[in-house]
């Protein structure tokens, strides 16, 4: 993680500037974010189902 260029200096012509640009890091973060979203839906569904059971 960190500055994605060899030399710690801002110069003209730079493109992607996020941490890990040009490496596998962005993909890793994207997978983590997808897992969070799906995990949240699963937990939410479990909780919601439990609430409905109480009100049958």
């Amino acid at each position, binding site marked *: *993680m*960190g*500055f994605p260029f060899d030399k*710690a*200096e*801002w110069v*003209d012509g*730079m493109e992607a*500037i*996020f*941490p*890990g*640009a040009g490496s596998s*890091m*962005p993909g890793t*973060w*994207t997978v*983590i*974010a997808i897992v*969070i*979203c799906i995990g*949240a839906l699963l*937990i*939410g569904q479990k*909780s919601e189902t439990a609430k409905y059971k109480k009100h049958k």
Partner: protein
Amino acid sequence: MEDQLAELAAQVAAIEAKGNMTNTMFAEAYYYITIPLMIIIHAGFLAYEMGASRAKNALSSGVKNILAFAFVTPAFYFFGWWVYWAFPTGFPLSAGPNGISGAEYAASIALGWGESSAYMGPNLADQIDGVFWGAFTLFAATTASIMSGAVIERIQTVGFVILAIILGGFSWTLAAAWGWHADGWMVINWGVHDFGAAGLVHAVAAFFTLGVLINLGPRIGKFNADGSANDIPGHNLPFTATGLMLIIVGFWGFLMACLVVGGEAWSWGANFANIYGTPTNLGALTFNILMSIAGGIIGAWIMTRDPFWMMSGALAGIISCASGLDIYFPAMSLTIAFGAGVLLKPAANVIEKMGIDDAVGAVTVHGTIGIYGMLVLGIVASGYPAALGEGAPVTSFTGQLVGAVVFIAIGLITGYVSSLILKMAGMLRVPEAAEIAGLDTVKVPAQAYPEGIAVSPPASN
């Protein structure tokens, strides 16, 4: 031939002049637009804290919030702007390496009297200072609004306004001078990076508020004799949740104003720069703001299922990523913000267990999460040059930690000391009888709900 070359050169110069003027006018309009957008933040805080108050205090909470805006604005004109330009190198008030700081420089551009006044009023040769001052003034007013919600239902109006002036005119401005200004000692020596002001606006305001809350004490009925806490629900949660959404709308203006427009001084050539002069753009902000809002809401939903905390989670999501919105990767923002949303309610519970009555969770949302955001940047985005030029300091966890500690200290010390003085002067807390009766009845010549909060009459037909 020479005549033709001279004519061509004149035409090129004319085109260049027009281009520069167009750019300057764009910059002027850009900052001008951030101001009404940031006023939406205040509309949001107004709704938020009126809804979070019990019905007997709804209007007095609103009066307090409106007055904060009214008094912080002139305070920032009278001395706040001067503080920002005078203090970057620290208390000696000397000039910094970029030559745009120190007492002498500040006195030449940021005071409403003498030669300096030329820059503090309408000036056809100066199209930036007015709108730039306006954007900073709204940052200042935002700090006061952050405090405003936490202290509802028991603080005196004038005492609160004095605190708002100190916070908006001095405390956060000092932090901005040190951690935001291109000559700021924390930027130059420690590589502190706080693009969207997670620390220097949010955490400073929150820890100032904590200092005030210590002296102010909890609302009557908040805590039991055994130290356990009671919930004091506001009278209108939908109003509060809508206010929080308005704050988020206004945040786009707040963060927009944290950029330097391309082509202007301190920009990255023809492109946008952050306030440190290093490159970024509106695309970076758009990706990261939206993903951080989403992450914060999801985290808070998982923990609470409560719309108040979910909307607070949205705010916490942005604040948690604010330091690095200019450089983060979007999925990284969602992940960081999710962490903030999860952290939110447990952190608020810790504050409550300490006997602090923060009526809207401001210390947690803005303070705990602001510091979390600053420190996370030191982990996930270390090694970034914090300023321009070869050998510029780089971001690091140590630098972010130093920044966080300084911001906490500025807020907590100034908030605690100023509120202690007001307490000793009898200007901090309302009398017990007034608090029990309700502050609207005691001092507001209007009723929030003269017909009560009734079910609507039947529709025709």
